[in-house]
């Protein structure tokens, strides 16, 4: 069996790398076939903009998963950070006014909270030697409770006075490219560089692939792992920064199940759930695929709404199957 793999390594690897792109193209063709409006620039811009949230979070998740961890708390963390940002900015409107400073302080708060929340996940799991699954399941409940508590069970709304100032962060564009897409691109490129071109990224691969070897290679395993959770937290905070100006609110229903979507994007993109191998571009495509599937389902009424979930599930399975390229073997 390994012989087989060895033998066709050259071809298979190439195909594996472009696999997700192929699957995405197939989805785009499907979308166009279902409704011409799919290819309208407005719709495409929607798809890319929407993918940004999950995409940015998933870039962070790629680090965590590559280094052999998992983070279930990202959705709650996003809700919590969004809530805290709103509270802080609403407070500042009174004193600082509705200028750019208020927004900037909000952003700084968001980043600090993201880093802090990530550090909590990382430190508790590494120092406490508790499975990341359990720790982040716990903090998932924790962060969500905190936002519910802050919002008194309801919704925290950004002061309308400040919305105008903050609005361009989501609704603005540069040369016609929406801001969120630009940020997503920036995060993806930064993530790519960090994961593939720096010692840090190399160490993530090493830890995910064999912790003992990493330890014997003078890698501070706990530190690197904690850093991956901090990067995850930072990514969540960036995603939140572009999320808040969109609807200007946060509640206990914000970000529900984002963790599942983020992890799914990562895995669809070809990163291994067991760690040791990660691929940022795959993750980006994975996030785009998930959004596109949702979009396509909204563009047709051929399918009973009740069956959306089924179609979504089947498309994900088939897309991943196609991109793995294993079906090509059968031919020989």
């Amino acid at each position, binding site marked *: 069996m390994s*012989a087989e793999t060895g*033998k066709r390594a050259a071809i298979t690897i190439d195909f594996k790398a472009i696999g997700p792109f192929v699957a995405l193209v197939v989805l785009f063709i499907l979308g166009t076939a279902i409704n011409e409006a799919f290819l309208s620039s407005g719709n495409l811009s929607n798809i890319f903009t929407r993918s940004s949230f999950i995409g940015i979070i998933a870039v962070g998740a790629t680090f965590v998963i590559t280094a052999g961890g998992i983070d279930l708390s990202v959705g709650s963390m996003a809700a919590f950070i969004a809530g805290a940002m709103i509270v802080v900015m609403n407070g500042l409107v009174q004193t600082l006014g509705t200028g750019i400073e208020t927004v900037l302080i909000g952003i700084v708060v968001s980043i600090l909270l993201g880093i802090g929340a990530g550090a909590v996940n990382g430190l508790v799991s590494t120092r406490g030697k508790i499975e990341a699954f359990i720790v982040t399941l716990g903090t998932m409940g924790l962060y969500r409770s905190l936002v519910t508590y802050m919002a008194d069970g309801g919704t925290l709304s950004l002061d309308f006075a400040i919305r105008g100032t903050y609005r361009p962060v989501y609704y603005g564009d540069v040369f016609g490219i929406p801001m969120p897409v630009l940020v997503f691109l920036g995060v993806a490129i930064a993530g790519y560089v960090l994961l593939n*071109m*720096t*010692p840090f990224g190399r160490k993530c691969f090493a830890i995910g692939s064999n912790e003992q*070897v990493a*330890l014997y290679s003078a890698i501070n395993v706990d530190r690197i792992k904690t850093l991956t959770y901090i990067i995850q937290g930072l990514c969540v905070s960036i995603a939140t920064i572009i999320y808040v100006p969109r609807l200007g609110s946060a509640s206990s229903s914000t970000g529900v199940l984002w963790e599942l979507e983020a992890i799914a994007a990562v895995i669809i993109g070809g990163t291994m759930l067991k760690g040791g191998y990660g691929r940022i571009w795959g993750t980006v495509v994975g996030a785009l695929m998930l959004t596109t599937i949702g979009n396509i389902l909204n563009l047709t009424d051929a399918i009973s709404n009740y069956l959306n979930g089924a179609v979504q599930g089947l498309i994900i399975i088939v897309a991943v199957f196609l991109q793995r390229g294993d079906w090509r073997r059968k031919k020989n």
Partner: protein
Amino acid sequence: MRLSGQGICKSFGPAQVLHDISIDLYSGEVHALLGENGAGKSTLVKILAGYHQPTSGQLQLDGQPTRFATSDAGEKAGVILIHQELNLAEQLTVEENIFLGRELTRGWFLDKAAMRAETRTLLDRLQCDISPDARIRDLAVSDRQMVEIAKALSKNADILILDEPTAVLTGREVEILFGLIRRLRTQGVAILYISHKLDEIKAIADRVTVLRDGRHVATRAVADISKDDMARLMVGRDIAQMFPDRVADATTPVVLSVRDISVPGRVYNAGFDLHRGEVLGFAGIVGAGRTALMEAIIGLRVRSGGTIARNGTDISITSLSDAKKYGIAYLTKDRKGRGLLLNMDMRPNLTLLALEKFGSPLIDRKAEEAALETAIEAFDIRAANRKTRVGDFSGGNQQKLLLAKVMETDPDIVIIDEPTRGIDIGTKSQIYHFIGDLTAQGKSVILLSSEMPEMLGLSDRIAVMAAGRITGILSGDDRTEHEIMRYATGISDKNGASPL
């Protein structure tokens, strides 16, 4: 003739590693297979046992053409292979591993009592006192190998293939294994035996087949061939001198001074001095605590008490990166579990320990490639392809890559744990000379080895450990096998009371 391979060829992708090889195994005969690292020995035996399919050529069993579609088919036909690479499930126990896939049952249930008893019997036959309930991951490598052998024994082989079984075994264990092989031979089992140790081949084998670069070079009766001839056939040239000529100079300054280090339960109050340009050997029976001591020194293991001084000043080492900072590097003896990332190719493995050298903030790929180029050259690493996973390398080439990895940090003090495990005789000599060159450059080497010749041939002084204590440090003419054994078994102890 029991089993034979006729005109076997094998390619992995574009690389052909076996060219038209034929080999015959007879009942009641021990047939040795010899060749350099990467010559294709392991690949050939995997084909004979059904783990790989030949690209062309065929197998014959008792003269009948046959095909083993899987290793299982091979085993059913009585062909049992003990892998060079340990092939055990780490989280399972000894007993669970031995009976994996063919558990004894009573009705629907596991017959644990029977399996445990059977395991005990098997281990007893190997005079091995590990518990059937021990988990593999808690065992030392040599014990794991004994489990591997026990597992093969339990399968009642007609044709037994052993791929470098002794690379990780101690002298005593080798003796036990040889006794066993001789007994099996008289019972009519056909045995194929791979080793880089020519003494062993002389001692145990009837015939020997030599491979070079995937090609059949010769098959001879062992009685008709000298060790030198074997080495020559294998390497294709004369091996000039095994060990480098070195002049010990005991007056150089002390670069590393260790005092009073203990590791709870494994090492007690160990201390020694290491001089500049010196090779300090550490001998002892496996499990004596050499590895534990070194791991404590370099910060990989919690130690209690003691001091470490570098060039006369006390230093504190709490992690391997501290050790690295002080110019100390360590080569582990567990190359698969702790040494190499098996699912990756050579480049990231080579540079992992010395990553900061290859650029910051970004890794300089060109520099990495250049380092790889140099390392391949310097350590004679032979891989079919740059992109081959290290896990698919031949065992010896993995070892060379590991050595190259450690040397990337350019250390002043190198602690080498079993450096030539699984290395062919030609390359061994290269490594010895390499160590010689290091000391000539003023670097110091601590050599942990279970191979007496290399211990005696390389070391200026030899520290001997027994049951966690350094029982003596031998120098000059005291460095004899006999003396080492006296200290290693605790009969002599210069450093105080008997440890026992």
